[in-house]
């Protein structure tokens, strides 16, 4: 079981992810609605894993990944990207993200990616 921080500016998308994660035995310890909040909650809750949207207000997902990765390179971050944002995935991986999921994703895709990352640890 991993302690997970879910970051997305859409409450609906957070709910969808949260449901999949909880149903598969993980704990969602906090939810962030933008990159800045994600950084704050990462510092506060020290999650094992973070799911990170890219396009968000205040601070985007890539900027948040850079800050979080610099503070703790061991935290695993999965980018949750829009179908049209594949071009920025490379940038996110360079910034420190471990893997990515492309919307629309189903539960099995999410869990495969998370299991792969947890097992690699």
């Amino acid at each position, binding site marked *: 079981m991993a302690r997970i921080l879910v970051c997305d*500016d*859409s409450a*609906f*998308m957070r709910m*969808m992810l949260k449901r999949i994660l909880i149903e598969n035995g993980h704990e969602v310890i906090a939810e962030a609605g933008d990159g800045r909040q994600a950084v704050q909650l990462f510092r506060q809750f020290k999650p094992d894993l973070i799911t990170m949207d890219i*396009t968000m207000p205040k601070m985007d997902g890539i900027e948040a990944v850079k800050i979080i990765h610099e503070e703790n390179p061991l935290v695993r971050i999965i980018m949750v*990207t*829009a*179908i*049209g*944002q*594949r*071009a920025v995935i490379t940038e996110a991986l360079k910034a420190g993200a471990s893997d990515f999921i492309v*919307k*629309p*994703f*189903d*539960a099995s*895709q999410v869990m495969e990616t998370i299991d792969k990352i947890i097992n690699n640890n």
Partner: protein
Amino acid sequence: MKTALTIAGSDSSGGAGIQADLKTFSACGVFGMSAITAITAQNTCGVTNIRELDAEIIRDQINAVYDDITVDAVKIGMLASPDIIEAVAESLQRNAAKNIVLDTVMISKSGSHLLKPEAVDVLKKVLLPMSLVVTPNLYEASEIVGFSVEDQNDMKRAAEAIKNMGAQYVVVKGGHLVGNACDLLYDGQEFIVFANERIDTIHTHGTGCTFSSAIAAGLAKGLSINDAVAAAKKFITMAITHGFRLGQGVGPTHHFYELYIKAGLC
């Protein structure tokens, strides 16, 4: 046979909505399936009533199709409310839907609102990032990007802004431009203009639905995005050319012009 699913509203007069989508799928050679989001009472003169279906039956229609049948492309039309958008997104997510064509239906030809203003934000946040292609007209593009879209330069700026919201491709439809009927496809790198001389007719009921469904049909058949849009543009141009008078108002396009011509019926 390749398949396409339309998720949209029903048009009792048969020229737009689900009815236009299914006719387009058939005319373009793919098997059409449908999940109805709302029922509209309308004719060629206007919309007189709208009844939204509840989220559960919308989800169940989509899941029933996916649980049994391979869906090669999806066209999304009238969504009406934030609840319906979320129900549709949830089902598409559950089924990891591919080749989603999002026709951002907001207002009918006769001026009725088909999407509640508060739903536009949910559409942008939830459905747009999972769509392969988004097909707004000038009015819808303005509503999505928040600035006025009136000429080809505005269309390019709007396409870039919508692409940045997460869609993979954007087609801004210029049917309401002054002059030629030119549509703009943006793939994140270059703009491709699909231009045709304007056809002198008032019978354009259901053109938006027909065009986006024709794109979905092309994608279902495995065409590239450029080829799917080009084929759809050709199809809608011919369907408008053969549009006909029906009722007292704005008549429909002719989805089966090709068959009717071969049969000597038009």
